[in-house]
């Protein structure tokens, strides 16, 4: 598998696939990861809004929402080109189908979803797609697609067979306002959840039967985020009441709930607090070193300290008048072996909570100095990488956690990160810069 990665100036969008490509304005650059050599260079017609690799890593899709255009580039045949023009109907989102040969374009105002086939140039239309948080989801084996539909003020789910886009099932859901749907990793259960005005999670079988419903409480703001565990055993539901509830796949009943209190006490978890190491004024070496480096103020080292309980996590109370308040569990991520669950509570934005799914208890809490921007699990190992909008990369594993300084000049602030599929390297995205981080067996180094 070829792997490409851009090192210097780039746009923020980057999707993780084994080869890595990045776009700058209207230029698409494909590089190899190991050698950083430019493999291909393409030019698009307009500013690229969205870029995606196909599943077989042979094609790259560049969508320009302003122009309503989608351009597809081939890696093997640079001369090959494909341009899809949505015309006056506009384009809001574009994505690949799992087989890598169809492109699904969602038109403006979600009027319809057009399925373009690159094999036959055939077009299919899907009417009444719903404009919601997550309206389309493909099953992991790429065989089925679930699409949320809104027709006559009622929510429906359409299940399509990705082979020939044949409508397999079409059923109404018991939601007031469907906000999202997600397939379980084994492809047999579809989780459907309602908007935050009502706490309702529905579980449908592949053939459209309602398996179970779950509603923790009424009236208060409901579900904020939903995540399946990779083994399909657990469904984690994060809600606005700062709790995560775990459902099991046998009875679809809650087996436990994880709370995020402001004062952590009475737990066996370790609390890591990031402490910044200020360079000593008296030491002669450090200032010189820093000066030569060229960044004294921004590149402060930091390390983790283990805090004894009880620990107080700083809480930021959200504005009650605003919609979608910054409170509740917004991000849930399971590790690849389903052993750990990482959560983030929006009103404790500097803390990341790691839960052990075997013991169903809190394993660790990482408290950063600034708000956590993004975190992602290693695709293979139980290793969590997180970034907080500063120049550091943080890694946690069951053995401990470490803070790594990204050795770049200027104010490179890590806004988001992505793991490589093999778990060997990480991409750190800044506003205008990108950094690749290689994982060694012992230490992280660039």
């Amino acid at each position, binding site marked *: 598998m070829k792997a490409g990665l851009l090192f210097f100036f780039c746009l923020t969008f980057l999707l993780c696939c084994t080869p890595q490509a990045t776009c700058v304005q209207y230029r698409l650059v494909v590089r190899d990861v190991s050698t950083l050599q430019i493999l291909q260079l393409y030019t698009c017609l307009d500013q690229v809004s969205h870029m995606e690799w196909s*599943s*077989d890593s042979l094609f790259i899709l560049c969508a320009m929402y302003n122009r309503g255009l989608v351009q597809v580039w*081939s890696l093997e045949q640079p*001369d*090959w*080109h*494909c*341009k*899809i*023009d*949505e*015309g*006056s*109907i*506009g384009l809001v989102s574009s994505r690949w189908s799992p*087989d*890598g*040969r169809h492109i699904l374009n969602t038109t*403006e*105002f979600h009027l319809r979803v*057009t399925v*373009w*086939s*690159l*094999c*036959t*140039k055939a*077009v299919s239309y899907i009417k009444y797609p719903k*404009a919601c948080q997550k309206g389309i989801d493909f099953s992991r084996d790429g*065989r*089925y697609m679930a699409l949320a539909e809104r027709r006559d003020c009622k929510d429906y789910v359409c299940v399509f*067979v990705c*082979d*020939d886009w*044949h409508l*397999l099932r079409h059923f109404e859901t018991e939601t007031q306002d469907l906000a999202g749907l997600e397939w379980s990793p*084994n*492809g*047999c259960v579809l989780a459907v959840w309602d908007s*935050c*005005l009502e706490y309702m999670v529905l579980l449908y*079988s*592949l*053939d459209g039967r309602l398996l179970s419903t779950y509603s923790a409480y009424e*009236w*208060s*703001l409901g579900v904020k985020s939903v995540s399946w565990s990779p083994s399909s055993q657990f469904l984690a539901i994060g809600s606005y009441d700062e709790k995560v509830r775990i459902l099991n*796949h*046998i009875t679809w009943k809650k087996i436990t709930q994880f709370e995020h209190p402001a004062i952590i006490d009475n737990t066996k978890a370790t609390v890591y607090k990031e402490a910044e190491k200020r360079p000593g004024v008296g030491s002669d070496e450090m200032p010189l070193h820093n000066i030569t480096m060229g960044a004294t103020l921004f590149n402060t080292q930091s390390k983790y300290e283990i805090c004894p309980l009880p620990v107080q996590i700083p809480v930021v109370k959200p504005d*009650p*008048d*605003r*919609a*979608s*308040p910054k409170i509740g569990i917004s991000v849930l991520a399971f590790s690849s072996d389903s052993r750990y669950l990482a959560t983030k509570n929006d009103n404790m934005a500097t803390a990341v909570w790691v839960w052990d799914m075997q013991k169903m208890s809190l394993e660790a809490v990482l408290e950063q100095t600034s708000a956590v921007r993004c975190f992602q699990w290693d695709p293979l190992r139980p290793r969590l990488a997180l970034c907080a909008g500063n120049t550091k990369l943080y890694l946690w594993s069951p053995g401990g956690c470490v803070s790594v300084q990204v050795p770049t000049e200027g104010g490179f602030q890590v806004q988001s990160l992505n793991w490589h599929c093999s778990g060997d390297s990480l991409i750190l995205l800044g506003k205008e810069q990108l950094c690749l981080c290689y994982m060694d067996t012992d230490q992280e180094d660039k």
Partner: protein
Amino acid sequence: MPESSTVKDVLSSSVECRTSPLRRFSLSSLHRNSLGVFCSEDNVQECLSHISQEVSSFGLPPVWTEPGSGSELNIVAVLNCMYDLIQLHRRGLRTLENMEVEQLKSNSNVDFLQLSTTRLKEQLEISKRENTGLLERERQLQLKVKSLQNCLKNEKEEVQKLQNVIASRASQYNHEMKRKEREFNKLKERLNQLLVDKKEKKQAIDVLNNIGRADGKRSLWKTEKMEAKHEGEMYKTLLSDYDTRQRELQLENAELRKVLQQMKKDMVSILSSRKPAAKGDKHEHSGMQAASEEEDDEAFDSSKESVELYCVHAREKLANSIRLQWRRLKSHVERLDSQVSSAQTGESKSTDAVPRETHEEEMDRLKLEIQQCKDFIQAQQQLLQQQLSSPCDEETASLLSDCYMLQEKERLGDEWKTLEEQRKIFERERRNFTEAAIRLSHERKAFEEDRATWLKHQFLNLSPFSDSKKPSLSKSKSAFLISAETDSSAAVAPEKFIKHRSESPRCVPLTSPSTADLYRTLCLIPEDSSTKPKRKTEHVEESSVFCGNAPVRHKRWDGIQDRTLSQEKNSSI
């Protein structure tokens, strides 16, 4: 008269109350006499003095002075005295009246006061009761107030929460509404734009060339079969998922069941191991009985458990038995704890001392035994060594070396001798037999030759006139022997037969008897001449038989043979 009586009474009373020792005997005499009169003509003087004394004691001027005027009374003084006394009396009465009145008054006061106190007490009681009742009510009301306050607080909190909820929902609705409005506006604009803008850009795709499918297969038409196939595949996926899940659950179940059974077994073993140690607690004992029964039951069940506890009853049974065992174990542990705690107080120390002593005695005894056995073994060992190492004579040594086998050896020697003798006898006999057999074979050969020549002669001399020509007896012995041989063969044959049959060690020298004798013995001589020709013809027939004629004669030859044989048999035996 009441006055006088009262005066008298007063006097008497005064007399009675003022008895001075000096006056006692005089008083007694001055007491009323039988008539009830104080003064009589006898004791006037005494009375006078007494009265004057009394009067003076009253504080009145004396009535009579003794040494004075004689026995005549001063009437004026007496009257004065009387008047004074009357006054005194009146005064006394008055005071008595007053006092009585006073007393009445005070009595009534007392009564009144008593009444009032009782009334007041009652009132007090009543008011106290009322007070407690009021206090009680107050307390209850306070409690109610508190609870109501709590309720109020809760309600307020809930109201606040609901208000918050409403507020957030309202803001969410507003937000959504605004979003939808914005989208609607955009839609309106776009619609306007489209209506105005005639140039409509159509959708189009521009591909350089079609690319193959990712999996290399050709895309298929949408048909009903395809739909059915999709349905089928979907159900297959679902089913396989259910299968794997069920299998996992089964495995988990089996493991848990195993764990439970193991636990049960352990618990049962623990509980049963302490059975003999359990002291006679009846309840415990009965519990034990039940436990043993259950164990038997369970032991039996464990053999069936491989069938698997699939039905609800079996599962419940396992669960119940586990619970039961656990309860027993728990009670056992509790009992042990209590025992330990009671032991720690020092109660059972004395009971431990005795067993320990016996235990030690036992130990000593065993040690002694061991020592004795060791010594014994040692001695044996020594003796054995001595035996082996001690020197002795050669003879005795040689004797001794084989002493155990001597008797047997002698016996064997004797038997050997007898066997040797027998063997020699057998050798001799065998030699005789072989010689006899050799001789017999020679004789047979000769006999056969003779017969052959006789038969030849017979054949050659074959003629109707068998009588005229008699075979010359002078012919070779062999001729006779031929004819005789036919008989002698018959004779020999039986002899042979006899020989073979009996195998007697007697060897009969085979000397051919004289022909006549032979004939005679064979009963074939003219004693019975009739038989001869018959014989002859028979012989002829025999020869003809030999020549290979009709088998009928063969029969006769056989018959002759048989007859001769039988005859010979008779003769020889």
